[in-house]
């Protein structure tokens, strides 16, 4: 079922410049608080960007932002519109995978542009990247946009700068009560250089066995998730493993998984649980490629932006008793 992206040359969208229009869409769930979008719109204007709201961005149909047809329509329309230079999702949630059969791939191929989001939007990012070769962007959504200087900084580096993002730093650490996990835990040390791909684990799982299944071969894979019990994460990882998805990866970056402590989710709780850290450690110690855990690319305000398909370098080494982790995005995602 795998659609190999190897045969497809990488297509880079044009970088975002002052005066450019950004299309705001809701391919998954509606915004929790509509007014929250105003913060993002204000930030956009400060950057000289002109936000354009999709026709159905405030539609609501239960947990979906309107019906499938309308949500797909907004996406296709913004890809078609030459004036729109980037497309940003308002929020993840649920429902973007439902649209994949309704997207106009030829239209997207003919109109490469920046598309960004995370969480449920992973389905769009992976599918578009693999179907068209377009570099898509795992990054903030418009309702969790710029709410930290870290996120802001990497958004600018990823889509408003022609230079590669370069070495990824960490958010400013808290002096007391630091967030757990630390950002640079090493499960297996090593050095690697390969294109980077990934996203939210639940969505990677959802696409398994479909024509949009992730191709991880010879790639550095990054994953993250939110509010999943450890056993649920373990089940998804096992599925990917049984499908051979870890056999040929060149490196693995497990991001911060917010709310994935035993008993922290609101569903499928289980007694005698173990931490995801222990599950990952058991599975990915002595791995055939470097594996790190903790970087801020998930469901918190502090989130780097990662272009899918560009070349990255991962170094994970122990030196003099401490760990040294370098993630360098060596190739620009825009042109």
């Amino acid at each position, binding site marked *: 079922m795998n659609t190999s992206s190897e045969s497809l040359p990488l297509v880079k969208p044009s970088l975002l410049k002052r005066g450019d229009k950004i299309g705001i869409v809701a391919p998954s769930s509606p915004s929790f608080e509509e007014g929250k979008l105003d913060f993002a719109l204000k930030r956009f204007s400060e950057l000289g960007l002109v936000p354009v709201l999709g026709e159905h961005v405030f539609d609501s*149909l*239960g947990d979906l932002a309107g019906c499938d047809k309308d949500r797909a329509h907004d996406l296709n329309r913004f890809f078609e519109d030459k004036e729109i230079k980037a497309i940003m999702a308002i929020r993840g949630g649920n429902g973007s995978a439902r649209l994949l059969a309704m997207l106009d791939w030829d239209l997207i191929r003919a109109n490469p542009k920046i598309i960004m989001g995370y969480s449920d939007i992973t389905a769009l990012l992976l599918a578009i990247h693999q179907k068209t070769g377009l570099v898509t962007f795992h990054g903030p959504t418009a309702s969790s946009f710029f709410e930290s200087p870290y996120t802001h900084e990497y958004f600018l580096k990823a889509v408003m700068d022609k230079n590669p993002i370069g070495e990824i730093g960490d958010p400013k650490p808290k002096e007391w009560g630091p967030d757990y996990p630390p950002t640079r835990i090493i499960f297996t040390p090593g050095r690697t250089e390969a294109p980077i791909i990934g996203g939210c684990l639940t969505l990677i799982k*959802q*696409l*398994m*066995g479909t024509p949009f299944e992730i191709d991880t071969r010879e790639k550095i894979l990054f994953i993250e998730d939110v509010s999943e019990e450890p056993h649920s994460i373990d089940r998804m990882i096992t599925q990917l493993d*049984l499908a051979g998805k870890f056999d040929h990866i060149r490196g693995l970056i497990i991001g911060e998984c917010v709310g994935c402590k035993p008993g922290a989710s609101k*569903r499928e709780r*289980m007694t*005698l649980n173990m931490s995801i850290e222990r599950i990952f450690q058991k599975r990915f110690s002595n791995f055939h490629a470097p594996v790190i855990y903790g970087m801020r690319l998930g469901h918190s305000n502090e989130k780097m932006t990662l272009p899918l398909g560009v070349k990255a370098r991962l170094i994970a080494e122990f030196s003099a008793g401490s760990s040294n982790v370098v993630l360098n995005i060596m190739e620009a995602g825009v042109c």
Partner: protein
Amino acid sequence: MTIKPHALKKGDQIALVSPASRPHSAEALARAEAVVEKMGFKPIIAKHALSINGYLAGTDEERAQDIMDAFSSDSISGIFCLEGGFGSIKTLSHLDFSQIKKHPKIIMGSHENTCLLTAISNQASMVVFHGPNICSVDRVESIAEIKSTLASSTILPPVTPSLGSFPAGFHHTSYPGNAQGTLIGGNLNAIASLMGTKYSAHFNNKIIFFCERDERNDIIERWFTSFYLAGHLKRIAGIAFGEFPDCGPKDSLSMKSYQDILTERMIEHKIPSTFNMPIGDSSLSRVMPIGIKAKLDATNGKLEFTESALD
């Protein structure tokens, strides 16, 4: 050709295994033994049935070893899963399916153990049984149902909404029509969890039954969307939706019920299908053979077997 194990006889030895999580206590295990004795069989407790490894009953290798030991033993006639939870999927890469195929015997379980059953069904081409994990059996009706199903080498009685359910005999057709094909099925999340792997169920021309418990509507929708994206819904013959206890919106914002969501897909793909079939792991559930031919009358809520499940 699908291999049919032998029907059970009084006094047969049954291995009690924990392919996923362990029974909650030694008392729960003792009660499961009593339940199996009540059926007229002799329970043999697998070595790691009560082991603790986080939420798992022992390591993946230990749980797989218990399954392999039970299949390989000539004195064991059947294998019952004790408990669901999570983890049978983690035993799959440690199982020797050619060895299992050489020793066909009854294996029964539900919920997470659907992963194990589905894998054995397609890797060893053997009829397997979706029925309650023994630790959750708490009614004499279940004991009678398990015993009569697994001791029968003739065609099993048709599956219709149970008279014990309320309102009696109620079913809800999501798309009318008749279908025939080989029966597969089990827990929806578990079936979705095998997608993309070599253990995955094959949906072509199949009648599939789904059950789920304690899950949010939007998560049920998410995994069902995987089947849709994979094109399975175009190729499936019919669907019997079983019991979905404690499934609903829960803390999500979904307004549509899982029945609404699934019905939309049934209509879109014109799949003969019905809700409220007595399939799952409750005291009203039927024990379902996986891998034999069946006919589904979705209009009237009736699933008929057209061949025997056991030799």
